[in-house]
């Protein structure tokens, strides 16, 4: 049924560059049990270009990358490098063909040194067989210097002590050590601060000018517009278009291509019916982590928490939920103090926490989507203590329908796309009937379309009278979704900003207050 779509795929003709494509992916097909992840996707990568790959979650980007990295074999279609067809026997084989992939989940061994990580599987040897530490560290230092990171990362340092951005640089160094002509990057800036992301983008541009081809996967379309030469849009496992960046009017056009329909308002209107204070926290303290946290949320209100990574926002929310014990402080619901010692107590009081890390803290990936949804309120699917599978299915479907969950509820949660996984977690808490909902970075790593749906859900919950707390590192998200924003820095609430007073500068100033003075505000992580 989608053949008509493919023939319509807009492919801008070669813009005068005579370089023949270095890598050609032709008509790739990949089936997973119950899902066809790729239905004949094609694209090509030229020498010395940055080629962006964009699409909603579930569009097939990850599958395409995994095929290109040799991690999975396609069920159909072919790959050619320099005009010669290749079949990758495994990730090492792809590397031998010059394709190095930097995955979103960084492949760093924390116990090894930086140099050992850079040369993992490619160790320089002396006397034939012995690993030469000195040689490895010398060459590692050289490569790190070309990355402009020589001063901050020592080759002999344990990789576990590095920041995420530094680990990313180590991964890139690894690709350089292999002198890979093709580097595939999967969401490389997702975990980086704005400053680090800028540095990475500069590096990418430099690598391109030195002849490296880069396949760049990102949800951040502004980045794509900035550094890519061409962009390929995937949707539903097919290529929708490959375009020169110059031929694109703006990110709006890309979004339209990605979702296949003009994107309705990304940020839906706020709930207008805000009631009494439904939830409040006074003087909550956990020594050394956060201090004297007091705030309140009204029924129907969405209250944001802005701040830098490490400001203590997640820690406060975990303490409220009973996941970690605070030293002192009072939590009140509708004016009544509630005693929360464990997550169970919080759930019993109608408080829900959607953790930042979906896969590690939010879902049991080896269970079905339906079971994850009913997990926190299994009693609702039981009769006389016996689990009714019919009820599990019915309850999960009742919840998943309005959430526009588009995966399969009876498939393992681990097979769902990022956006769908987030909907499972949201569904789980909606089903508990919670009326205080804490969302911790709910849109991290999910695509634009799914983001808009998450916002719509947040507003729907609020309009039904829930008190919603939204922790986010994306300032534009906070400013467009929340009624009120608290700004945290260094474990304290430093500012409270109401909707009329929303001001990027003011919020950033608060977020940075506990950090070095004099640092420009634009460094805030993910600030729009």
């Amino acid at each position, binding site marked *: 049924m989608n053949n008509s779509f493919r023939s319509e795929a807009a492919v801008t003709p070669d813009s005068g560059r005579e370089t023949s494509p270095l890598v050609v992916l032709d008509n790739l097909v990949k089936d997973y*049990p119950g899902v066809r992840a790729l239905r004949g996707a094609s694209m090509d990568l030229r020498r010395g270009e940055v080629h962006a790959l964009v699409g909603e979650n579930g569009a097939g980007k990850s599958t395409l990358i995994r095929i290109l990295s040799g991690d*999975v074999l396609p069920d159909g279609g072919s790959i050619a490098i320099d005009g010669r067809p290749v079949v990758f026997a495994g990730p090492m084989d792809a590397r031998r063909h010059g394709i190095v992939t930097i995955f979103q989940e960084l492949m760093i061994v924390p116990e090894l040194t930086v140099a050992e990580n850079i040369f993992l599987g490619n160790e320089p040897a002396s006397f034939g067989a012995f690993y030469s530490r000195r040689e490895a560290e010398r060459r590692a230092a050289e490569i790190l210097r070309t990355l402009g990171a020589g001063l901050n990362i020592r080759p002999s340092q344990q990789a576990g002590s590095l920041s995420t951005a530094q680990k990313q640089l180590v991964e890139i160094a690894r690709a350089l050590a292999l002198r890979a002509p093709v580097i595939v990057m999967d969401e490389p800036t997702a975990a980086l601060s704005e400053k680090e992301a800028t540095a990475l983008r500069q590096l990418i541009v430099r690598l391109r000018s030195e002849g490296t081809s880069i396949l760049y996967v990102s949800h951040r379309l502004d980045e794509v517009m900035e550094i890519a030469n061409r962009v390929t849009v995937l949707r539903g496992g097919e290529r929708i278009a490959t375009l020169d960046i110059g031929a694109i009017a703006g990110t709006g056009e890309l979004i339209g291509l990605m979702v296949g329909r003009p994107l309705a308002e990304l940020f839906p209107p706020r709930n207008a019916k805000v009631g009494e204070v439904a939830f409040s926290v006074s003087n909550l303290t956990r020594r050394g982590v956060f201090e004297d946290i007091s705030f309140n949320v009204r029924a129907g209100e969405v209250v944001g928490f802005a701040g830098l990574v490490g400001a203590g926002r997640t820690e406060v929310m975990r303490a409220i939920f009973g996941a970690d014990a605070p030293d002192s402080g009072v939590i009140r619901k509708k004016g009544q103090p509630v005693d929360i010692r*464990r997550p*169970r107590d919080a*759930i*019993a009081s109608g408080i829900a926490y959607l953790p930042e890390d979906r896969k590690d803290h939010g879902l049991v990936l080896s*269970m079905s989507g339906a079971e994850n949804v009913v997990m926190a309120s*299994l009693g609702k699917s039981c009769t006389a203590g016996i689990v009714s599978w019919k009820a599990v299915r019915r309850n999960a479907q009742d919840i998943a329908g309005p959430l526009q969950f588009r995966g399969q509820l009876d498939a393992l949660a681990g*097979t769902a796309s990022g956006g769908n996984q987030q909907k499972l977690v949201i569904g789980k808490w909606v089903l508990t009937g919670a009326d205080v909902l804490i969302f911790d970075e709910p849109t991290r790593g999910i695509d634009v379309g799914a983001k808009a749906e998450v916002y719509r859900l947040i507003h729907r919950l609020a309009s039904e009278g829930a008190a919603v707390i939204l922790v986010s590192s994306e300032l534009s998200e906070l400013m467009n979704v929340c009624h009120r924003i608290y700004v945290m820095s260094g474990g304290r609430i430093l500012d409270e900003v109401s909707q009329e007073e929303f001001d990027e500068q003011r919020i950033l100033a608060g977020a940075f207050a506990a950090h070095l003075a004099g640092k420009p505000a634009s460094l805030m992580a993910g600030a729009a």
Partner: protein
Amino acid sequence: MMGLSESADKISTESGGRFVPVAFLQRYGREIGLPVIVVILTIVFSANSEVFLSLPNFRNIGVSAAALAAVSFGQTFAVLTAGLDLSVGSIVALVSIVGAIVMRDHGIAAGMAASLATGALVGLVNGIVITRFKVFPFIATLAMMSIVSGLALSLSGGVAVTGVPGAFADLAYELILGVPVPVVMALAVLLVAYVILGYSRLGRRIYAVGGNEEAARLSGIEVRGIKVAAYILSGLCAAVGSVILTARVASGQPSLGATLPLESVAAVVLGGISLFGGRGSVVGVAFGVLFVSILSNGLNLLNVPSYTQMMIIGGALILAVALDQVFIGSRMGRKS
């Protein structure tokens, strides 16, 4: 067999649509694999031994498999929480001694009750050591194996406890509708374990805790309580296994069940329970037990020396785990 091992299978896949053989194999291959192998084994042994395919021999297999089955069903609970219970063999020995003493002095009913209580108690201690003192299950139950075994030997003075009522010893050889009582008991344990795991809150929470402990905790599940319950269930099942063995030898034996830790872990792993927790079905474990029992019975009938049998069973265990990795890989859509 029914698709029982994963929660996902339980909710019928009627929405699925067309039948794809490869996808079907990827999805259910592991569940079908072992039963198919058990059937093949049966056919092979039947062809090579005229004694194998006979009712008395099948009763024989059943009786000798029953104790291992009960213990393995208990082991399943522990392994599903991503744990392990190496103390099952010692529990069998201690329960045998305690049960025989109480039975001798106070009758069969009291003896049975004491047996189950002893098993549950050791399980409780296991659970507490693991969850409160945060000792890894491997070390905790290894240590408990030594402690409980020592307890059994001191209680009995190192010798068998005799004077078990004859009516109790006869149980091992009585038939209900032609089925030996030990087999009936093992089937009862299977049924109870199946219902608990598939249809009780406790069971589903055991899967959740084993699958992702942090997510389970943040969903309000009392992780420690669930783990303690799993070890109590393991102890209880070991107690049932002990009752079966004690009846067969008609006395309390302090050295009973020494090979059960290895055999039960083998049956559980062969049966497709992931050692990382949260994955697999107790029905699979039943086939694991059948596989081990039929294999050793058949090899006996073919006069294969028992030392060689040990090597064959060890090899089968490695093979099963290796195959399992392949299936998990293809199901999760990943190669390694």
